[in-house]
Structures are given as structure tokens and as C-alpha cells.
């Protein structure tokens, strides 16, 4: 039985949450409209300005000990100190907080209690042989 036509490349190699679309299959990669070119030019201008600032600091006669990267500082600040001020208790966040923060504590409390009570009952009834081992 002969195989059917090969599957569409775009469907096979489409992006999902683990891989991204190859540049060759991306139609946005092939258009060279003036808007896209202007956008690329603006991005290049921003990148060139940043590069210039960095190179000035790097090659200056008295370079600073550490060239601070403001993007890195902003990233660190956003992930550590900006989470609590911007957090807002909504339905989603409260549900997730209850499920992942309070849920496990209650679950393990119940699990240990039930296990200990069961063992205690067995020992009281004399059915449990206590292992004599250092390990």
C-alpha cells in the first residue's frame, strides 16, 4: 500500500509550548513591507544606542569596576521585590494559593495523623511487630 502525500511541513513543524516555528516556515519572515522595515530600523537604532553606551563605558580610560546592566537590575528587582506590591488576591490567585500552599500542609498533617493512629492502634492490640534495627 503506497503512502499518502507527505504531511504539510507547517503542520508538522508548527510551534507549540516547547519549540518555536522555524524561521523558514514563518511567513512574517518573508515580507519586506515598509512598515516592517521601519520597525526593524527603529529596533536597530535602540540596539545601537545601547551598544554605544556599553562600549563607551567599557573602553573609557577610567573604566568603572563593574559595569552595571540596568536590564539585569530591573529583572532582578521585578522577580524579587516587585511581586508583592503588584500581587492582588483574585479568584485565580486565591485558589492557587489555597491549593499549593495550604493544601499540602493540611494533607500531610492528615496523612501523618492517620498513619500514627493506625500504628498506635496496632501496637495497642499487639498485632504490630516492632522492628529492632538501628537503620
Amino acid at each position, binding site marked *: 500500500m503506497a503512502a499518502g502525500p507527505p504531511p504539510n511541513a507547517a503542520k*508538522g*513543524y508548527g510551534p*507549540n*509550548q*516547547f*519549540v*518555536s*516555528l*522555524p524561521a523558514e516556515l514563518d511567513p512574517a519572515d518573508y515580507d519586506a513591507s515598509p512598515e516592517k522595515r521601519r*520597525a526593524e530600523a*527603529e*529596533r536597530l537604532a*535602540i*540596539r545601537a544606542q*545601547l*551598544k554605544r*553606551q*556599553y562600549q563607551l563605558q567599557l573602553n573609557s580610560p577610567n573604566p568603572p569596576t563593574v*559595569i*552595571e*546592566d*540596568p*536590564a*539585569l*537590575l*530591573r*529583572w532582578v*528587582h*521585578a*522577580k524579587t521585590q*516587585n*511581586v*508583592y*506590591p*503588584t*500581587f*492582588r*488576591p*483574585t479568584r*485565580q*490567585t486565591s485558589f492557587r494559593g489555597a491549593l499549593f500552599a495550604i493544601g499540602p500542609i493540611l494533607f500531610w498533617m492528615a496523612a501523618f495523623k492517620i498513619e500514627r493512629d493506625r500504628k498506635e492502634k496496632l501496637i495497642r492490640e499487639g498485632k504490630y511487630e516492632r522492628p529492632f534495627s538501628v537503620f
Partner: protein
Amino acid sequence: SGLSSEMLPGPYPRTPEERAAAAKKYNMRVEDYQPYPDDGLGYGDYPMLPKRSAHERDPWYQWDQPDMRHNWGEPMHWDFDMYIRNRFDTSPTQIPWHTMRKHFLVFLSTMLIMFGIGQFYPSYRPVGPKQYPFNDLYLERGGDPNKEAPVVTHYEI
């Protein structure tokens, strides 16, 4: 740090002016700047960048930080430390992703099922209980030497 509070991340931008100021703060174009949705999860005005790992960046370009493939001042992804070159790789695969997943799952499930079957229905050559000499090691097991040992024969002639 040497950054003023205007240069640091802040709350979600509500007005277009705030959006423009945030885009300028993060060194991005106003059209490119897209903050995370305001769900109260703690992102604030941090931009939502495409989920591309460092593997996808040009290896031949002269980055300011070549190991991270990152330039000075370029906005970093929220999960930047996940997307470094030692970790998660989002570059397009040679074989379609679902094909790889299918092959992997078929192999894994076949192996697990076979191991499971082997646990419940073990298969080995016939064995019998081990036979010890000297009347089943009567003296070695603490039997009384003065008493007569029970005779144990493991053979038939």
C-alpha cells in the same frame, strides 16, 4: 543599585502615557511593549517577551555577554534563567515534535508494560530448595553433638 525608582519595574501600566514610559524604561519600542495581563500574579509592568531560549539566538553575532547571548540593556525574559544554554531549548527540532513525542511514548509504554508483566508473571528456569550437606548442617546450626542427628538424604538411588 544605582537606578532611581522610575527606572525600576513598577505596577501595571494603565494609561497610554504609562505604557510609553514603561516601554522607554525597558528600552523597547512602544509597539513592541506588551506587559503581562493584569491578573494580580505579580508581574507588574514587566514586558512579555517571546518565549525563545538562548539557543535560538545567533551564535556568530558579537554579543556583549557571549555566554548568555545577551546585550547590555536588552530586556531580559521573565524566565531568563530557564532559557540559558544549559537549560530549556526551544529551537526548532529536526523531526516534528509530535513525532518525537509519539515515538518516545510508544517506547516508554512498551518497556513499562513489559516490566509490569514480568513483575506479576516472572519467568525463570525451574528451581528447587537448596540442599545442604551434613544432615542439613545439623552441627553448624547449633545441634547437640552428643545427640544423634536426624538423618537427611537428598538423593535416591
